[in-house]
């Protein structure tokens, strides 16, 4: 691949564009949570507030990118036989390290995420990217893929977190869990209008994700329908053109004959 790009500058440009697409695909088109339903456990458990969701997202980005790098680095040395177990070991190592770092430098986050930090090990997203992407691609695109997927995961968690926190407390606070040098709240209705405790709890988590999934589905359905309609219109047009051509041809033939 790399040799070919040297010969053809046009292709190189295309590949750069490809890297950008590689990054953005994880955010919307292949969003791990809303499209692939990967990592639903943390998506439900740690999204009671925006900050815990974002914190989880950052940890996942870190683990995902790091394991992608290592996996793509060693992809040629690992015998196929022990591929999966090696990946598990690598991921578990990074998760342990990330857990310790969080405990040391973001203690509030560590406490609020609780057992869901070690559970990053079994997050299907990370194992999935390692086997499906990093083990087949070079380091650079693996990093981009890891970052993109991680950001998509973070964005989804943040969306759910914002919804739940706003409905539950009527405010979006910052600086409580993440080790930020400042704290306060972005939105603060400072009234108990939205104070619906159910959104903090498990029931609210399920329902909010359900609603968001339905919204994304509705959008997907709408786009599909639109595409379908456009396709139909295009086919009609082509048919018309073909008929026109046929008519013209027939007329020409008739003219010749005449």
């Amino acid at each position, binding site marked *: 691949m790399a040799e070919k790009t040297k010969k053809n500058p046009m292709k190189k440009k295309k590949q750069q564009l490809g890297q950008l697409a590689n990054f953005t695909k994880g955010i919307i088109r292949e969003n791990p949570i809303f499209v692939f*339903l990967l990592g639903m*456990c943390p998506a439900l*458990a740690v999204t009671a507030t925006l900050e815990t969701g974002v914190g989880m997202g950052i940890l996942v980005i870190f683990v995902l990118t790091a394991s992608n790098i290592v996996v793509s680095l060693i992809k040629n040395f690992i015998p196929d036989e022990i591929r999966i177990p090696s990946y598990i070991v690598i991921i578990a190592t990074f998760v342990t390290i990330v857990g310790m770092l969080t405990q040391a430098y973001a203690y509030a986050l560590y406490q609020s995420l609780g057992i869901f930090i070690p559970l990053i090990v*079994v997050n*299907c997203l990370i194992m999935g990217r390692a086997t499906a992407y990093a083990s087949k691609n070079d380091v650079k695109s693996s990093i981009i893929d890891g970052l993109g997927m991680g950001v998509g995961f973070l964005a989804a968690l943040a969306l759910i977190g914002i919804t739940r926190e706003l409905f539950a407390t009527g405010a979006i606070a910052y600086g409580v869990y993440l080790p930020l040098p400042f704290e306060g709240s972005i939105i603060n209705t400072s009234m108990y209008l939205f104070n619906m405790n159910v959104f903090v709890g*498990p029931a609210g988590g399920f329902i909010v994700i359900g609603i968001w999934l339905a919204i994304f589905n509705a959008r997907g359905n709408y786009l599909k329908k639109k595409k379908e309609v456009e396709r139909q219109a295009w086919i009609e047009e082509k048919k018309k053109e073909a008929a026109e051509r046929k008519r013209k041809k027939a007329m020409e033939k008739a003219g010749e004959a005449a």
Partner: protein
Amino acid sequence: MISPTVFFVAIVSSMLINNVVLMRFLGICPFLGVSKRTESALGMSLAVMFVMVVSSILTYIIYYYILAPLDITFISTIAFILVIASLVQLVELFIKKISKKLYKGLGIYLPLIVTNCAILGVVEINIAQGYPEDYGLFNGLWVATTSAFGAALGFALIMFAFSSIRERLEAAEVPAAWQGVPVSLVVAGIMALAFLGLGGIV
């Protein structure tokens, strides 16, 4: 000796009050993925139950008899996931040798269990509870095992209930956007609301 009520409380609280799926958000993947048919839901539950109980015992022993005395509890995460993964491999191996029928029934769920966060989650929770402080090093093992068993029962209960609901949901008329997972999640949310009511039992 510990009084029997401790075990009773452990089972009830981990099965109903702190239900793994609805209250602790563990094992959502199989909850959504394998709950389409009651039969497969029960098969999955059975496999989970076995692995959960045995891995609870193993990890308890490893944590309190090896890692804690050596003062290296910080490697517990990697140790636990590898122990669970090895256990699953061993179970699969034995099932392969023992019976074809069993392998057909349960084998398909075994590889899925490694990445099932319910197992690792329950194991981590059991360790985080710190049973040895309350019941002593050895007795704590039994309490941990009991509560893992309760958690597995809770998982099975929810899998069964949810698969039954889903079978009915198939026949229901659901708007296009809500079909499949979204409506399942909302149903799960309502189930979780119902389970909130069990909060005061113990």
